[in-house]
């Protein structure tokens, strides 16, 4: 059977080229004219030659036949002929090789990913003549390593390029990719080569449907002795930013009791050392409060007490970065507000200057303010600085002040806004206030009258942030609540760009959006292993799909003179730490079967042999020509 060009087309090619060859033989080729000194000597040769004319005609005929045979072989090779049985049994496979963190486990030597590579190579070598295979790396994303091909050497090169990452595997995405590839293919097969720590085959779009594709599962790994750090969170205290708190969780996913040593390192120096015993399957949370001593980096590592390493080193290390603290210069424009002064005293890193409203213009002229707080005062025009307006009025207000409200309240609070994060404002009592009218792009953070009357608005004017509170705090019980100082400090932190939330960094396998400045179009990211990668900046954030845990450096704009922004990334995935290989893989309600055996043996690409025959004939003809057998 022909897998290449159809027979009719082959016949047409053979006919056309064959006629050409025949025409060349029938037409007498113009001979080369060679001058000789004395032609009568050649006449003696010609006399001898005449006796062999018949033989030479036969030789010419033989030569023509040889050319036609060569042509037939080449045309037949174009047809890609195959044995009938291989045509029937041709298979189309999409092999998804798990390259998630758990594939770094060393329970099989040298590690699971190497064993998986070996298995897939064996599959590639076992492909029949009509079989085709596509190999894709499955981690947080799906990366096809090459086209669908039956070329064993190319497949082996692709397989060699697989490398395990520190990210979890996204099985649903990989399966959707595979089903897309196999759409329209009869009897397509999906082969998952994994340890089985893949989770459910469903995502936000719902469960994955495999259609007519057959799913096979090739298990890699044999056991799962592992203790890992599965949670790691660090935060500074909002009201005491010199100290921080660490929460972490250790998980023993193995079958044995494990004694481990947990180390906390601040800026590379040991901060805490604890010995812990974890029962099989135990998840042990630990809190460390009031820690100090780290001003920049924080790392947690675990190691077995007996000095041996568990089977997955990737989750034995977690990283966090504490943002740098610097003194913020605050200008308070107020006729006097004890509550405000008290709130600002709580943060030792604030450098507060109080001025009376009349002295504001002179004080503002000095410049260098990180934030200005207008307490029941409104400047003549909006200042070019971050500002908190308490009960603003007049044309200098960043938002228009509307009608007065009687006994407004925080009926609706945007708790995602950094200025009110973690604050309880629902039951704040306010005697009176004013309705604020937000400008375009402004965000209503708090609103009264069931959300109809904004009383707390945040936004930005000319690149400077502002928060406007629509009532005087002295007309409310807000200063008597814990929420008041936190609100003031949260506003200042938001102005300064500080984030008081947990500082555990980014998770591997997710898309990271790292602040990189609004002006940069791209940024350069230095990876934990020292390699650099250029990434695009979208809406002021560098977008990067991270697959390695550790400390990163981001240089906005890619210029070396720009200050680098450090950040940390961690695996922190209990599913990946549970490295015990799974025996079953269930997708779409069906259990993945065993991989059907391949028909090992010689390749059935007959065209190769046809081409070899043509080359051999050409060589014979060449040899005979030079020995003047066929001339």
């Amino acid at each position: 059977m022909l897998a290449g060009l159809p027979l009719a087309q082959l016949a047409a090619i053979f006919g056309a080229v064959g006629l050409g060859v025949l025409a060349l033989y029938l037409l007498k080729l113009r001979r080369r004219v060679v001058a000789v000194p004395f032609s009568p000597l050649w006449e003696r040769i010609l006399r001898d030659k005449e006796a062999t004319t018949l033989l030479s005609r036969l030789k010419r005929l033989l030569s023509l036949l040889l050319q036609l045979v060569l042509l037939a072989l080449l045309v037949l090779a174009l047809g890609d002929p195959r044995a009938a049985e291989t045509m029937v049994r041709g298979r189309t496979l999409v092999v998804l090789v798990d390259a998630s963190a758990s594939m770094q486990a060393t329970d099989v030597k040298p590690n699971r990913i190497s064993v998986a590579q070996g298995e897939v190579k064996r599959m590639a070598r076992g492909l029949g003549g009509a079989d085709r295979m596509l190999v894709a790396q499955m981690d947080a994303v799906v990366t096809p390593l090459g086209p669908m091909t039956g070329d064993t050497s190319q497949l082996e090169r692709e397989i060699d390029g697989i490398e395990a990452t520190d990210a979890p595997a996204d099985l649903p995405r990989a399966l959707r990719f595979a089903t897309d590839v196999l759409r329209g293919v009869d009897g397509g097969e999906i082969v998952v080569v994994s340890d089985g720590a893949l989770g459910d085959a469903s995502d936000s779009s719902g469960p994955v449907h495999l259609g007519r594709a057959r799913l096979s599962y090739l298990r890699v790994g044999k056991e799962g002795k592992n203790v890992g750090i599965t949670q790691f969170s660090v935060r500074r205290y909002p009201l005491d930013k010199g100290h921080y708190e660490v929460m972490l969780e250790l998980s023993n996913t193995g079958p044995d009791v494990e004694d481990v040593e947990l180390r906390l390192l601040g800026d590379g120096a040991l901060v805490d050392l604890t010995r812990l015993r974890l029962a099989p399957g135990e998840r042990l949370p630990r809190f460390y409060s009031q820690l100090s001593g780290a001003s920049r980096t924080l790392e947690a590592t675990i190691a077995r007490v007996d000095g041996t390493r568990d089977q997955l080193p990737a989750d034995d290390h977690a990283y966090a970065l504490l943002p740098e603290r610097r003194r913020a210069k605050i200008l308070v424009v107020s006729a006097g507000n004890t509550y405000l002064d008290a709130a600002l005293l709580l943060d030792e890193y604030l450098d507060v200057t109080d001025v009376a409203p009349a002295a504001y213009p002179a004080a503002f002229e000095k410049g260098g303010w990180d934030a200005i707080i207008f307490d029941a005062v409104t400047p003549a025009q909006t200042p070019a600085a971050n500002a908190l307006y308490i009960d603003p009025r007049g044309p200098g207000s960043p938002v228009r002040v509307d009608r007065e409200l009687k006994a407004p309240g925080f009926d609706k609070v945007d708790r995602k806004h950094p200025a009110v994060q973690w604050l309880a404002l629902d039951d704040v009592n306010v005697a009176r206030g004013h309705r604020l009218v937000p400008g375009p792009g402004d965000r209503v953070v708090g609103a009264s009258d069931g959300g109809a009357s904004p009383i707390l608005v945040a936004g930005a004017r000319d690149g400077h942030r502002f928060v406007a509170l629509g009532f005087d705090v002295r007309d409310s019980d807000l200063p008597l609540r814990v929420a008041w100082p936190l609100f003031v400090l949260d506003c200042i932190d938001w102005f300064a760009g500080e984030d008081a939330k947990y500082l555990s960094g980014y998770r591997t396998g997710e898309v990271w959006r790292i602040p990189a400045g609004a002006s940069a179009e791209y940024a350069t990211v230095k990876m934990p292993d020292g390699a650099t990668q250029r990434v695009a900046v979208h809406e002021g954030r560098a977008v990067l799909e991270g697959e390695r845990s550790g400390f990163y450096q981001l240089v906005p704009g890619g210029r070396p003179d720009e200050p680098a922004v450090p950040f940390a990334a961690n695996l922190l995935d209990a599913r990946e730490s549970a490295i015990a290989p799974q025996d079953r893989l269930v997708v779409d309600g069906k259990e993945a079967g065993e991989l059907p055996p391949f028909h090992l043996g010689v390749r059935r690409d007959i065209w190769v042999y046809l081409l070899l025959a043509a080359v051999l004939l050409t060589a014979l003809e060449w040899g005979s020509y030079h020995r003047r057998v066929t001339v």
Partner: protein
Amino acid sequence: MGVFDLFPRLREKKSAPADDELFSEPFQRKLEYLALVSRRVYSGKLRAERRTKKSGSGVEFADHREYQPGDDFRSLDWNVYQRFERLLVRLYEEEEDLAIYFVLDTSASMAFSDERKLRYGKRVVAALAYVGLANLDRVSIVTTCDRVMQRMPETRGKARIFKVFRFLRALEPGGATDLGEAMKTFVAQNKRRGLVVLVSDLYDPAGFEKGINVLRYNKFDTFVVHVVDPAEARPQLLGDVIVRDCETGDEREVTVTSKALDRFAAAHAQYRATVERFCATHQVPYVQANVEVPFDELILRVLRRGGFVR
């Protein structure tokens, strides 16, 4: 004293960029060397054979003999008669010069393969002419193809070698070979008999024998220098070709194979053997001048063979 001391202009000529390799300095040195060698070879043999002992015009005393009636009284040696009272006649050696004709084939076949054969033939003629001139023979050069083309008149004396050089340098090859017709013209133009040195590749479609026979029948002492290029015996040809005669323009279709080449080489060898056998049969001195053999070696052989200067 070398030839450059005798002819300083020769050295100047050498330095001139227009000089071709025919008259290169090494060639001229060899020529001088050959002249000396030829003297040694000829002394007491060839030169003696060419002189006749007769009284009269000679200047060098050779011997006495008894007076015979009829002898010239002026040759009687009266001193001897006074001492011994015997009438003896003085005998003087009379030097007799020889006419040497060099017939150089300048047909197109001689110019084949980058004029290898013609250049070699010119060298041979120049060398032998120098030897002839050095021995005070009358040297003349004639070029032929199917007729007598050019002619250098008889000349004598070593100093006239430049005339020879100029003549040879100006030669242009061309034309078909017909030695028979050309030699008929030659013998008609040259009544004085002498030595004819025929320098040719003998590629004569009408047969090389005719030309030689014309010379023989007209009492010329003929000497054949057969210029042979071994490369012509095995041409670098393969496949289907048309062979075109460079002189006649005749064309033949030939399929050249290694076997055909073997047969051609055999035919070529056979042709050379035919020429040699013909010359041997008719007592014509014959030398095969292989262009790949250094020509001075060839000249030495020629001289050793002798005869042509008689």
